[in-house]
């Protein structure tokens, strides 16, 4: 029996909508669970004190610091390289075999799974370069991981700058470099910043690569050669070893909400960009 097309149309519309809402529901459920189970244990003491008894008691201050340092430092390393590459690909060359090879390199880097970065970082930074398990090893490894994202988003942001801006700048006698630094980059800044924020988010939630390069020491990292934990690593260890479910949820809460805030900030910046051009 053939169903009338009108009916099928309405049914499929409802069905698709239901599935989309279901997906949103999954997200909401995840966030709710973490919030409800973690919030009771999220005290000022939790944020600012040190872990005791392997994390069963106390707080997560060292891992918050570790996360901050890792996130910020890896961006410091990756951003100049990333923006530079993006500028080069869009402003200083035409599409050629050369650019295709570079893009292939970038895409490939993006596709490498984090455990391979962990393997590489471990054998290269920790062992061969004798940096040991340290903030430095972790930062360098994570910097390479987020580089493709920064390149991609910067390229898109730069490409979105209207051509007229360039031609006007040149007609006023500016050199290419002056045009790039004084005209193009400033107007592409929101898009680039969005990419940077998203990369920070990714760096912060990375675990496999970080555990094998930065280590899992419970100490507060005060030097770049110190080992330490990020919140993601601390959470993983707490959860896997069953050390403390409450602290695990609370750590997850801080972690997930940090990422949420970073994402919201990124959106805010993007919307300012749209507002600026309309």
């Amino acid at each position: 029996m053939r169903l009338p097309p009108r009916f099928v149309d309405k049914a499929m519309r409802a069905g698709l909508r239901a599935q989309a809402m279901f997906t949103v529901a999954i997200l909401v459920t995840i966030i709710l669970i973490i919030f409800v189970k973690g919030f009771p244990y999220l005290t000022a003491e939790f944020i600012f004190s040190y872990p005791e008894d392997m994390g069963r008691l106390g707080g997560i201050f060292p891992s918050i610091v570790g996360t901050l340092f890792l996130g910020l430092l890896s961006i410091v390393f990756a951003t100049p390289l990333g923006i530079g590459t993006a500028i080069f690909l869009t402003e200083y060359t035409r599409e050629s075999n050369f650019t295709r090879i570079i893009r292939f390199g970038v895409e490939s880097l993006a596709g490498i799974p984090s455990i391979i970065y962990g393997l590489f970082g471990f054998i290269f930074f920790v062992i061969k370069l004798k940096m040991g398990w340290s903030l430095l090893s972790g930062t360098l490894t994570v910097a390479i991981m987020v580089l493709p994202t920064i390149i991609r988003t910067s390229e898109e942001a730069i490409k979105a700058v209207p051509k007229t801006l360039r031609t006007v700048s040149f007609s006023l006698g500016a050199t290419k470099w002056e045009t790039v630094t004084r005209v193009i980059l400033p107007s592409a800044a929101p898009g680039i910043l969005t990419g940077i924020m998203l990369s920070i988010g990714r760096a912060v939630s990375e675990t496999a690569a970080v555990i094998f390069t930065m280590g899992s020491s419970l100490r507060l990292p005060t030097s770049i050669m110190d080992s330490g934990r990020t919140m993601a690593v601390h959470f993983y260890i707490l959860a896997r070893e069953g050390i403390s479910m409450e602290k695990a949820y609370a750590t997850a809460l801080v972690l997930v909400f940090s990422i949420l805030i970073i994402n919201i900030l990124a959106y805010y910046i993007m919307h300012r960009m749209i507002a600026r051009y309309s």
Partner: protein
Amino acid sequence: MNRRLVNKDALVRLVLAMFALSSLLFLFIIFVFILSEGLPLFYGVGVRNIALGMKWAPTRGFFGIFPMVISSFMVTFGALVVGAPLALACAAYLSEYAGKKTKIFLKPSLELLAGIPSVVYGFLGVVYIVPFIRDYIGGPGFSILSTSIVLGIMVLPTITSISFDSLMSVPAAFREGSFAMGATKWQTVYKIVLPAARSGILASFILGMGRAIGETMAVIMVAGNALKIPTSLTDPLRTLTSNIALELAYATGDHRRALFSTGVVLLVIIMVLNLLANFWVKRRVGR
């Protein structure tokens, strides 16, 4: 004065070119090191014994990773089974049906799903999905089923976003022509738009597979990490990625080299998947 400016520009161009080449440099270093640690064992023990070997007991000289290759593929397909239909539905809804208001919270939701750390997914899987499977379906709970569900949710944003791009790039003319002939929206979507975006959608599946097969932390937590090839959905399993992460910290000598060899195999699989996806994405609209 003009010459000075031209030279400066040339210098800038050179510096930026080096920056751009750095990506290739990193890729090169990564490959060199992984291969230099992983290839020797292939020569020493033999590719067949590693890639097709059935027993993994590296401290005793057995380096067979075949069961793990199979398990990796199993959960990857499982992830697609769980995640692809849902992801496709979201993409279709977003591109063809959703109004502005819905788009405003649907798109960010998907990106937030993608932003949640994998260890959180793994944790929630252990606390909620594993016991559920153990109590109501059977087995220890750590299984293909639990891993596929968790991975399916994790690859959903990837598949949705690429399929969405693909659907959006189908020209409006296709849809308008279909409506002009009296087709309903669903008929248009099902018979015209989706087929037109077929290549991109397939590419999104393959990229989703790439993500699933490379996932480590969440899998370690919910898969059980047993070395045998699973024979049922409720059997525990170990993937290539889990194997590396589980044993890297303890491994020395040949054992460690074997883990790098596992990494080499993983890299090869992912490179192949990426090439396939790129090939398909190039053939965007139409055939």
